[in-house]
């Protein structure tokens, strides 16, 4: 029975996709299109709940659909599994997905082509479910690229504007660079272990690992490249901020809560292998830590509400990746879990704000929305406290565990800890800054560097028209706010939960993933002190933001700060010029190579040989064409002599030898 449920879980979103895409001609009205996708996701959600109850008691459920291909004894099959890892992700994808689909019914109400939007939405859910339910690398990879493709389609949803199309293309290409790594990494694993099934990779043979160390390290690093693509880490993070061109609910689901966490999911899937290679772990940890810091530094000076959230996502993803690099895969996944709720919440709040402000996205043009949008405001506050890591809210539990894992990590743990702490403080700062500017301070109209990222009506910002969003949008906000508060309690530290209620989530996940080893033990006092100090520092950071943007005239304060730290401000505001760097170092030279190949190699070398031959033949013909008969005779004579020599030589060499 549960096998059938499992097979049906991805089927319902697929059905919703097909219905929405095939009925598009018949002009389904917006609400119906939305309901189809919502119901598709919600049905899957119920099935996921039913199946996951079974899984929690009786262990993984498998369903094998058909053989895709086989090679020697490696079977590539279309095979789903609901195990400890998939349970978590499935609940997130279908649960948060349903909430966001419901929200979108309201948000997309006035748009055109809504059927298309909900079709892509359902396609995304389908691909994501393939990714998390796949029992082997192949199905995972199908979902992996499927989410990339649906993300591409949704980022370019308003394709009439070149900017959106470019952002979509950039996302797809960056992901494809990662996919290059995933394909090669997966092939490497397949050749070493003779299997692609995660069930087998969970308990790899140590002798095999040691015998193929170099190949496995290389393959693992290639997989890490894939992770940096999908989960927007250095060096491939550049696509995620641009991905905000898509409709905001989509950013909430894909570019914040679920899709971008696929990289961490992949690391968990192969955790039992990479945990044996400290060099791979170190690379992962440093990529995560540096990404987390870099993105937080950029977020501090951004003005577009969605860009700030995007960089915040990159930064939080860095946290999760760092946790994996510390060997604490379950903790990383725990942060994936809590982050999904509060980041979806924050994005939907942003969507609500953008909807209320008629597609204004510049936070300096907002302000004072606290009273006009009370539900949005209070739910946003919950999201803020969660992401900042205030004790009691979900983000606190996961973030704190990552920091203590870093702190107790032997070797360079203390550096990772400092970087992590610094980005936590920055996060608290820029999120508070956003809260102040959007909801609390009075709007100022002297800002000129406006960013109109959204298309459509350019009917400026008018404070009188701002209104709270309809309840179809606020209900999901409230649900997500409750989860953002409560989700952390499933993974409390020993200190707070005692022996029976602590680390429930982590222990559950560790039935699949590798268990963190080699960490120092922390005494209770140290742990408490660390928690308190971190919390105080975070509160200070929030207070600082409050002081700059609320207590003072923020425009003046901002200018004076900007003047003082102009260099830093410029660097942060220009996003460290990473885009420009790639453009000049990689893309343009490559394009030049293409030009060189076409203009020089193709014309003068490849075609040159052809031309040379033609010329030779022409010359020979012209020579024979001369009217003097003796010359013609000479020509024929030469040909006969030549042929005779050739034939004799050939026969002598090969036949009569």
């Amino acid at each position, binding site marked *: 029975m549960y096998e059938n449920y499992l097979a049906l879980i991805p089927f319902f979103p697929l059905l919703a996709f097909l219905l929405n895409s095939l009925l598009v001609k018949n002009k389904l009205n917006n609400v119906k299109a939305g309901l189809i996708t919502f119901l598709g996701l919600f049905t899957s959600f119920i099935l996921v709940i039913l199946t996951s109850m079974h899984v929690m008691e009786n262990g993984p459920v498998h369903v094998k659909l058909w053989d895709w291909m086989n090679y020697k004894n490696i079977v590539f099959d279309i095979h789903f599994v609901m195990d400890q890892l998939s349970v978590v992700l499935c609940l997130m994808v279908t649960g948060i997905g349903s909430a966001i689909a419901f929200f979108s019914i309201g948000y997309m109400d006035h748009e055109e082509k809504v059927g298309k939007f909900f079709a892509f939405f359902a396609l995304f859910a389908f691909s994501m479910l393939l990714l998390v339910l796949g029992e082997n690398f192949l199905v995972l990879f*199908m979902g992996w690229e499927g989410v990339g493709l649906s993300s591409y389609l949704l980022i370019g949803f308003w*394709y*009439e504007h070149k900017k959106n*199309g470019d952002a979509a*293309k950039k996302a797809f290409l960056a992901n*494809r660079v990662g996919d290059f790594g995933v*394909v*090669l990494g997966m092939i490497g694993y397949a050749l070493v272990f003779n299997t692609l099934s995660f069930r087998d990779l969970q308990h790899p043979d140590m002798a095999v690992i040691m015998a193929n160390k170099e190949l496995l390290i290389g393959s693992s690093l290639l997989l890490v490249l894939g992770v940096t693509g999908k989960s927007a880490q250095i060096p491939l993070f550049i696509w995620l901020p641009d991905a905000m061109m898509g409709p905001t609910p989509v950013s909430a689901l894909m570019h914040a809560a679920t899709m971008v966490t696929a990289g961490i999911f992949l690391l968990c899937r192969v955790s039992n292998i990479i945990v044996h290679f400290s060099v791979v772990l170190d690379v992962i940890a440093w990529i995560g830590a540096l990404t987390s810091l870099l993105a937080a530094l950029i977020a501090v000076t951004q003005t577009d509400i969605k860009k700030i959230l995007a960089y915040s996502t990159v930064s939080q993803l860095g946290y999760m990746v760092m946790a994996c690099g510390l060997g604490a895969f379950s903790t990383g996944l725990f942060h994936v879990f809590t982050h999904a709720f509060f980041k979806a919440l924050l994005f939907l709040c942003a969507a609500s704000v953008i909807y209320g402000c008629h597609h204004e996205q510049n936070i300096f043009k907002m302000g004072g929305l606290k009273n006009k949008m009370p539900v949005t405001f209070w739910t946003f506050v919950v999201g803020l406290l969660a992401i900042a890591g205030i004790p009691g809210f979900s983000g606190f539990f996961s973030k704190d565990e990552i920091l203590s894992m870093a702190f107790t990590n032997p070797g360079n743990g203390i550096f990772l800890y400092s970087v992590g702490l610094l980005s936590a403080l920055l996060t608290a700062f820029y999120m508070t800054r956003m809260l102040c500017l959007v909801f609390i301070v009075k709007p100022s109209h002297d800002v000129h560097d406006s960013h109109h990222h959204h298309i459509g009506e350019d009917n400026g910002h008018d404070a009188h028209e701002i209104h709270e969003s309809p309840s179809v949008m606020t209900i999901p906000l409230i649900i997500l706010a409750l989860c953002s508060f409560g989700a952390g309690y499933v993974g409390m530290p020993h200190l707070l939960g005692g022996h029976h209620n602590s680390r429930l989530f982590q222990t559950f996940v560790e039935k699949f993933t590798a268990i963190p080893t080699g960490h120092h033990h922390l005494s209770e006092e140290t742990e408490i002190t660390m928690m308190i100090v971190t919390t105080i520092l975070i509160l200070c950071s929030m207070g600082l933001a409050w002081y700059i943007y609320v207590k003072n005239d923020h425009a003046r304060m901002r200018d004076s700060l900007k003047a003082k730290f102009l260099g830093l401000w410029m660097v942060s505001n220009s996003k460290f010029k990473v885009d420009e760097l790639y453009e000049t170092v990689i893309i343009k030279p*490559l394009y030049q190579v293409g030009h060189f190949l076409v203009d020089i190699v193709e014309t003068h070398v490849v075609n040159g040989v052809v031309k040379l031959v033609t010329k030779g033949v022409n010359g020979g013909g012209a020579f024979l064409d001369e009217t003097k008969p003796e010359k013609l005779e000479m020509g024929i004579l030469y040909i006969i002599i030549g042929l005779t020599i050739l034939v004799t030589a050939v026969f002598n060499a090969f036949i009569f030898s």
Partner: protein
Amino acid sequence: MDQLFIIKFLIPLLWAIGFVMAPKQNEKAIKLFALIGSFVVLAYSIKMYADLPDPGQLTELFKFDMPLFFNLTYTFAMDGLSGLLLILNAFLLVMVVIATWEIKTDKLRLYYFLIFSLIWAVNGSLLATSIYGFYIFWEAMLIPLFILVGVFGGENRRYASFKFFLMTAGGSILMLAAMCYMSAMAYKLNGSYDLNYEVIKSLNLRYSGFWSPQSLVFWAFSIAFFLKVPVFPFHSWLPDAHVEAPTAGSILLAGILLKLGIYGFLRFVIPVYPQAVDAYRDIILYLGAIGIIYGALTAWVQKDIKKLVAFSSISHMGFIIMGVFSQNPFAVKGAIFQMVAHGISTPGLFIGVHYLYTRTHTKKMEMYGGLAKVMPRFAVLFFLITAGSMAVPMTCGFVGEFMVIAGTYEINKVVAILAATGIMLSPIYLLKMYHLTALGELHHEENKSLSDISVLEAAPMIVLSVLTILLGLYPKLVTGMFEGTINFFTHSGL
């Protein structure tokens, strides 16, 4: 032996002759005749495959003795691989007839005559197993295509058709020379000049370095096939031919004619010259990998959409040649699958280009833009086919590329990694094409009144899109057809 074989085999030719005799005025009837003919060819191709007792074995269908002419015999035989390509060939014929249904020309009868005789020649070279028979049909393929490009082609058609003809025929001369030599050897061995399949396999030419007979014969055949595939750097005729060829020519050229080069390798090179294949394998693997990257980068900078697709073909064919020469069973299987996948996606792209060209009368991509607004049906189907060409998983393009890379990785990691860069490069040019065509603003005034494709026009693209997804999800549909033959195409030296 199949008594009716010769009739079945001659159907396309008979049909072609039928066009010659058809009344000139009634265009509709001629087109209908062509449509029926294409389905008949498809039906008998499928029937012939279904009748095979064992697709894994080469089954002799017909033998034709010529006692007065050096005692040569012409043998026709078929196995899973030739059956698969036979069906692909007939399927593409159906696609061509439907996609170019609206063609406007006063030489309609000539048009269909050429197409059907081209199909016939392809069938001939797929079924002939005596090397002289193969050679005759191989050369015969050139003539209809030469005329097709030369008569129905674009502005620069003469240059293109001559270049295409001379380059491929030039390669064939090398092949002919090698055949003469082999005949002489066969005479020494058997007292007969005959070169049927058993004889060539039993020749066992001596191999000892580059100047030894096996190596020279291998290179003579290889260069002839390289020119056909075409493998970098023998490709210079392909972009010209594609750009100038009418759509029917482009579809058949990309869809099936290029694969004949690969088929030639599989049938007449790999099982016959094992030591030479082993010795030169790495060189050819590198040529394949370079072709993948070269084709992708050159496709990227093109401004002409048809040229872009043509260069993308070079990139895709790189995968196939690599898979074949890796001699790893999985990669060989993938390469054969990729022949089918490329035979679906590239004709699909050419059909799309055809619809664009008949509407806008230009192939410059800068003259398109934002067409999704006015041609939504086209935009969706074109995207599905582009995704297939881009090798997105769950489409047929992915299956072949994945299998080739995986199989080659076991043999030569560097080459596999070079080839895998194709994963990164293919979306660069294909998305560029799609974005310039369908997305963005509809900024050209004259494009605002374009009509979307009709149901009839959409039909071939729908069929191709459905196949793209179906084969991506269930590749065994195709691999099952030729699986048993793989052992013949990977010699035991490995």
